[in-house]
């Protein structure tokens, strides 16, 4: 088992190195450099930047050194937590990141808090008796909820809950300090899709387990149904959903973009998009790196959960 985890770790380090090199190379391109130069030199646009000025700037910044030297230099700075300065706002990128990631983490925490029990519970209920009325209702509802894109969910929830019933504020900018009420709509929007997806996966996993031969053995051993399900079925049926829950961190990083933008919530996704639209290259680069880092860690987490829940792998 240890070798397995170590191998995954090595693979992830390799992936991180590749991704960082890729990102560095992309943002090291002439096109992006000129943007930075303009921002730092205070010009009005790339067109007004004279070739001489640009050359001088490149030399001053030490950007004429070989690629690898600059890459490792850059890596070293990141290792010290120095992610550069935002071009748009006059703050360190790390400060900006810390704040927005914190906001998104709050959102993600609540999503997981509600998603895990609800979807595992519903999925197991549906999967235990495949084809029952309850199963069919749960299945159809979850297909529908996974079919509505978040942008549409956000719209419909806003219209009904905010504009129609007035139960929740329609924007979550948190202008007057942090309030949970403003979190309701983004949270629901994320939950509706995620829960539907996880319910479907849990149901599939559970119904597959219930049809397996070892469940037949357990039933024909004369165990009470409760024990068959709780002791024999659930444990095996949990493997897939638990790994998916870990992986959903990666998915959440995608989904928060649209939700945060729609509800004007100051989180990671919104920061990323703003940086992209404004051309705030330092922020964009750092944010992408962080996103990949989180994604890779969630992958590792999911692998470890898989190994822990699966004796076949654990003792292989």
């Amino acid at each position, binding site marked *: 088992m240890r070798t397995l985890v170590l191998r995954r770790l090595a693979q992830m380090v390799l*992936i991180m190195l590749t991704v960082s090199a890729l990102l560095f190379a992309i943002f090291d391109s002439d096109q992006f450099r000129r943007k930075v130069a303009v921002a730092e030199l205070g010009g009005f646009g790339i067109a007004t930047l004279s070739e001489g000025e640009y050359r001088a700037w490149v030399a001053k910044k030490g950007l004429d050194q070989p690629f690898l030297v600059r890459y490792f230099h850059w890596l070293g700075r990141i290792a010290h937590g120095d992610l550069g300065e935002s071009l748009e706002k006059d703050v360190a990128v790390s400060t900006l990141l810390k704040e927005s990631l914190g906001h998104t983490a709050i959102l993600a925490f609540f999503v997981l808090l509600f998603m895990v029990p609800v979807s595992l519970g519903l999925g197991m209920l549906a999967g235990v008796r495949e084809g029952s009325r309850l199963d069919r209702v749960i299945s159809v509802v979850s*297909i529908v909820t996974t079919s*509505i*894109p978040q*942008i549409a969910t956000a*719209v419909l929830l806003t219209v009904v809950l905010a504009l129609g019933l007035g139960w929740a504020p329609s924007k979550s900018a948190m202008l007057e300090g942090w309030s949970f009420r403003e979190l309701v709509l983004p949270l629901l929007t994320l939950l509706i899709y995620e829960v539907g997806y996880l319910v479907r996966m849990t149901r599939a996993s559970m119904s597959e387990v219930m049809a397996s031969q070892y469940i037949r053995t357990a039933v024909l051993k004369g165990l009470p149904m409760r024990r068959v399900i709780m002791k024999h079925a659930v444990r095996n049926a949990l493997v897939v959903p638990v790994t998916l829950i870990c992986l959903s961190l990666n998915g959440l*990083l995608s989904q928060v*973009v649209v939700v945060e933008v729609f509800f004007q919530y100051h989180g990671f996704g919104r920061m990323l998009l703003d940086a*992209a639209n404004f051309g705030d290259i330092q922020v964009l680069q750092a944010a992408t790196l962080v996103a990949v880092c989180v*994604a890779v860690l969630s992958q590792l987490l999911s692998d470890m959960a898989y190994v822990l829940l699966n004796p076949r792998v654990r003792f292989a």
Partner: protein
Amino acid sequence: MKGLATAIGRRGTVATLVVLIWVPLACFVMLGPLLGAMERYVLLPATPAVVALYGMALYRWRKSWIARVGATLICFWLLIAVLVPYLPLLDPDKPIAPLALPGTVKHGVFFLLGSDLRGRDMLSRTLWGSQRILVWGITSTVAAYLVGASLGLMGGYLGGWWDEVVSFLGNVVMSFPVMVLLILILNLLGQSGFNIILAVTCSSAPLIMRIVRGLSLDAKSRGYIQAAQTRGEHPLYIMLVELLPNVRGPLIVDACLRLGYTTVAITTLTFLGLGLQPPDPDWGLMIKEAATAALLWKYSYMLIIPALSVSSLILGFNLMADGLHDLELQS
């Protein structure tokens, strides 16, 4: 009846119909201005093809009502997309009367679904909007499939260092959250329809590759593959003739799901201001424009109509995938 059944049984028929729909639509949307006066006639062959395809779907999937509902939703939007130039609609881009509520007459014009902030007809914009999403959605999915499936097929069947390299690159791409990757690529390349295809291909191809690779690995141990190997068939023949047709079932299901994902991605990107550019009517764009201004219960139709449209299309893809999956399990 029997003749009909065998015609339906032929795989080529479906492919022909799909091409008959897609090519005119794609020409119309992508090359519209170049066609000039021809534009109106390009879409003519597509209408009967959609009807025929729908009939076939209903006949073939008579055992799964879920698949049939899905097909109905998709064919509804397809039919709208190929018929929309011939429908008696107002110009979707022309501001007529702002903020007309659904079912009212304003400035002497009747607005069935109302008008938007700038006074353009919602009905016309919604129906025209189906063209864009279908064309770009289907095209990017097909592109992603071409790349992903061929890489996966080679990785799974040939194995070796090729497989290692391709799988690693796939892992690298997959370690980006999808939306982050899409934003990054579009930011890097600039925003256009073709760059959307490129971005979607980049983000979906590794996933498709992984599925196809798994299926190929599984199929590789089958007797008929070994039989082909022992009679010295070329790997390309084995991959295309012996392997690919036998993994098409799960692939078709996945393709339906992926069409749904792509539709979501494109709409979302447009909403974020990153995808297709105005002024052409587009559902994501309609939500974006309305979301910034029309936050009143009275004007919520401007948000709801495009939201429901895109949801119904995606629901169609997902139901079809689910129904096909069930049919697959039954046989």
